[in-house]
């Protein structure tokens, strides 16, 4: 296969990318290298590893062979040059921004994002001196207006959580290119099965592996994927990549590592020094999940479309926000960016408002009331009282999480059972 000049398909990559048989034992499944550290071959080898002159393993905070399979797997599925696994999706965002921004710098972000990201950008990032400037994905020109000489990146979600918003990646990427900054796309809700942001001009992709890539609700994890497309050295605006690094005796990462320098910088400057390493056991569970990603994502999307269609006809329901629904505001973008389906997550506006939302989450029997998405199980939450509680009322509505809104993550159960549970939940006294 290595020498055959054909490009493997997505299903094949989901199973095989990064996972050759173990070189020492021949183990076919990827072993869990549950170890903190790795023995050096000799003193010179140790020095070479620490100096980034050799490829190899030192310490699991910097890299681990189980995690490396996961990194290559996701990089291959996204069509990127390299990946870096970290402890969570939030950790991925911290490491990416720490590699790109200096104190006093700015980045532009879509204001329709996962509530946890809005909080992280508004509050935690302020203490690093990184200033978020919000833009509106429904008005692409707002991204261009938000650019200043201090802007170092643009951040969007491909499918936004929880509103069912699809961002016009290609249009935003043109603004990023013009401004000379990388476009970062959080591809968590779509996964590369539904959407390939690198094909539309993204430079960096981040994931919460916790969601559909792992897919079974058992492991927290995050991923950074380097698209290999951005010229970090052009204007010297990204000194972590373009300047000699005192941490590594003056190495310049971009000239040394070429089109995967960003992933290396995130590893050897970000992960090494900030410390949010992923457990190899989590990496193993997530890898096992990814093997069935194409099957699961298609079922998630097919079930979700059936549920969205059913809900949109219910008298208790004011509106359904799901990009896969014909007539949805984002349906045209969905046809372009997620033609195989629009994912599992939708929001539903209940005519009965806040109380109806509380009633529904209390009455469901099959749906689990919890703060996650992307499980095999169907999940439900009332964002206004949970994930988006810290936002102001205006921010809640902007983020698609007003008081009447319930978020659903449709699982892999029989769709008839999912619909029956919603029906009894909506009609229960």
């Amino acid at each position, binding site marked *: *296969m*290595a*020498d055959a*000049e054909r490009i*493997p398909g997505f299903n*094949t*990559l989901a199973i*095989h*990318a*990064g996972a*050759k*048989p*173990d*070189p*020492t034992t*021949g183990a076919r499944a990827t072993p869990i290298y549950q170890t903190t550290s*790795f*023995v*050096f*071959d*000799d003193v010179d*080898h140790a020095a*070479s*590893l620490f*100096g*980034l*002159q*050799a*490829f*190899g*393993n030192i310490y699991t905070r910097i*890299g681990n*062979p189980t*995690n*490396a*399979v996961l*990194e*290559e797997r996701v*990089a*291959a599925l996204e069509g*990127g*040059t*390299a*990946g*870096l*696994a970290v402890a969570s999706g939030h950790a991925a965002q911290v490491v990416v921004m720490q590699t790109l921004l200096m104190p006093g710098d700015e980045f532009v972000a879509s204001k329709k994002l996962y509530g946890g990201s809005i909080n992280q950008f508004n509050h935690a990032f302020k203490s690093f001196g990184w200033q978020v400037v919000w833009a509106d994905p429904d008005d692409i020109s707002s991204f261009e207006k938000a650019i200043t000489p201090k802007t170092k990146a643009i951040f969007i979600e491909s499918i936004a959580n929880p509103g069912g918003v699809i961002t016009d990646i290609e249009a935003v990427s043109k603004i990023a290119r013009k401004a000379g900054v990388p476009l970062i796309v959080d591809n968590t809700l779509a996964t590369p099965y539904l959407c390939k942001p690198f094909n539309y001009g993204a430079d960096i992709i981040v994931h919460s592996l916790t969601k559909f890539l792992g897919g079974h609700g058992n492991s927290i994890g995050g991923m950074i994927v380097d698209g290999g497309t951005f010229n970090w050295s052009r204007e010297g605006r990204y000194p972590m990549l373009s300047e*000699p690094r005192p941490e*590594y*005796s*003056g*190495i310049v990462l971009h*000239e*040394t590592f*070429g089109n*995967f320098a960003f*992933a*290396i910088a995130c*590893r050897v400057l970000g992960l090494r020094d900030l410390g949010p390493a992923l457990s190899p056991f989590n990496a193993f569970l997530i890898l096992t999940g990814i093997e069935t990603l194409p099957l699961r994502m298609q079922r998630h999307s097919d079930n979700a479309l059936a549920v969205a269609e059913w809900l949109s006809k219910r008298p208790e329901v004011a509106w359904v926000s799901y990009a896969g629904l014909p007539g949805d505001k984002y349906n045209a973008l969905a046809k372009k960016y997620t033609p195989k389906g629009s994912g599992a997550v939708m929001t539903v506006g209940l005519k009965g408002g806040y109380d109806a939302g509380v009633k529904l989450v209390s009455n469901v029997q099959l749906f689990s009331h919890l703060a996650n998405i992307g499980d095999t199980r169907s999940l439900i939450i009332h964002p206004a009282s949970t994930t988006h509680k810290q936002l102001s009322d205006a921010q809640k509505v902007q983020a698609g999480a007003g008081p009447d809104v319930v978020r659903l993550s449709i699982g892999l159960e029989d769709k008839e059972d999912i619909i029956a549970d919603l029906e009894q939940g909506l009609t229960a006294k």
Partner: protein
Amino acid sequence: MNRDGYPDSYIRGILNTVKTIAMVGISPKDNRPSYFAFKYLLERGYHMVPVNPGQAGKEILGQKVYATLADIPEPVDMVDIFRASQFVMPVVQEALALKPKPQVIWMQLGIRNDEAAALAEAAGIKVVMDRCPKIEYGRLSSEISWMGINSRTLSSKRAQNFGGGFQRMGLGINNKREP
């Protein structure tokens, strides 16, 4: 040869054939990419010959440095060029004047000179541009996968240990022992 995308078989064929590699433009500084690549290829069993007029007569990693390709007193299989694209043509012309001619001209990551490539190819020499032999070796041996790099290879066969330790993978030809 399509100069934008080399098949793995082409790169593997080169790395499995050449034995003596002259590296033009190598730096004696241990934080420079050329030094990294030189050291890595030396450790993988290639006979490495440093070429740098400013360092002629000195040694880099125990190997005697020559001022020019013509000064090297033995045949060279591959010339690996660590010079900016605009300085590549004279190096290629110098390589073509060697007797015997090298089999391969390799221009490093970020270096591309299509005119020089065409000249070499017309003389029957294989050309690679904008690639690093260290990265390509690590990619095809699967060693680079430890760094989360997309090796763009799939296999149900295990990678081969180079020998001399656990963390060195090989392509086969120079391996110290078969796994």
